[in-house]
């Protein structure tokens, strides 16, 4: 049997513990009030620093100066816009006149072009000559262009016929890009 059990209250010990607890509570209360106050004050000061009137003044000054050059700014905007769009067009447009020139350069002098049609997909050439050599030379020239992938990428000989009425050879060719 344990004889050390004390059924009486330790009043002094308990009250000192309670005092400590109350002290701690008071401390927390004061600290929390002060913390809220300090944080609030800090935020207020920061807001004052951030919303400094010098920024607004600076903006107003710059706007005033810029407005004097409003006309130039608009012109420069239009200029940049036009340049951008023109560049896009020039890059995208197919240069059919150049295609036609390159192909016509390859026509031998004794071959005559009857029909010549170029669009964005193909070229149709119909010509005639008294000489088969001229037609052969023309076909060879075009075949070289296809081989070198210069302007055209394919060549189809549609027909090669003898026109007895005119006593000429007629050739019809189709090329693709």
């Amino acid at each position, binding site marked *: 049997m344990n004889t050390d059990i004390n059924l009486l209250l330790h009043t002094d010990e308990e009250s000192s513990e309670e005092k400590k607890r109350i002290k701690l509570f008071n401390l927390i209360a004061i600290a929390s009030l002060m*913390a809220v106050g300090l944080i609030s004050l800090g935020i207020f000061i920061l807001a004052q620093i951030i919303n400094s009137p010098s920024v607004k003044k600076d*903006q107003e000054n710059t706007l005033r100066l810029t407005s004097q050059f409003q006309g130039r700014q608009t012109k*420069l905007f239009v*200029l940049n*816009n036009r340049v951008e769009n023109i*560049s896009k067009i020039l890059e995208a447009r197919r240069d*059919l*006149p150049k295609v036609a020139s390159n192909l016509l350069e390859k026509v031998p002098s004794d071959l005559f072009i009857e029909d*010549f049609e170029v669009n964005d997909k193909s070229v149709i050439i119909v010509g005639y000559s008294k000489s088969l050599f001229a037609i052969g030379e023309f076909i060879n020239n075009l075949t070289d262009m296809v081989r070198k992938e210069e302007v055209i990428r394919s060549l189809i000989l549609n027909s090669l016929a003898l026109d007895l009425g005119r006593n000429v050879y007629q050739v019809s060719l189709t090329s693709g890009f």
Partner: protein
Amino acid sequence: MNEKINTDLKSLKFILNKNRLYVFPIAAILISAILFFQFVIPQFKALLIAEKEVKATSLRIEAQKANLDVLTNINEGSLDSQLEILNSALPSSKDFIGILNSVYSAAQKTGVNLGSFSFKVGDLSESISGNDFPVVKLSMPIVNSGIAGVNSFVETISKTFPISEVELIKIGNVSSVVNLSFYYKPLNISDYNQDIRISPISQKELMLINQLEEFGDTSSFSEPSTPVATSSAAQ
């Protein structure tokens, strides 16, 4: 009943009396918490928003100052002449006079005979969407001008204003046809923003302007006295 209330009040008073020293700190902590959530947090959020706004304003000011530098150093005279060239090259609307000048000028330079032609204007009320390049189509018959003449004509017209694209070249023995598309591009005002940083005219842009300058001037060209063009709202 009253007795019960009295007993409760008594016990409440007893509890309060016993814990009266805790009342102030607990109340203070609660008030602090309420102040923190009701005022400090919204204040902090407002501060963050204000900071963002100030940053944005600073960036705007910086851009405007940079713009100001660019604008003050620009020669307005040369800007006007460059703009004139570019507007002739790519008009903001259907420039029929410019197109006719271009056609007649190319025909005169290359000595080809133009047949009757018509504009394929289309729906005049149709709105033009964003990135498209609208065109005015023109089918141009050329008579008795030979392969070299027609070829020279298309080469010349592709280097005149307004900028055009040759869609079809059809050369025959007697008559030939050239289909042309003349570009225009309306200016999108919504793209204009005063706060966007503008850049000075770059070397690349200058090269393009110089290239366009070489395209030649057709503005002084006068069209023939006898009308050869008819317009119709086709397509």
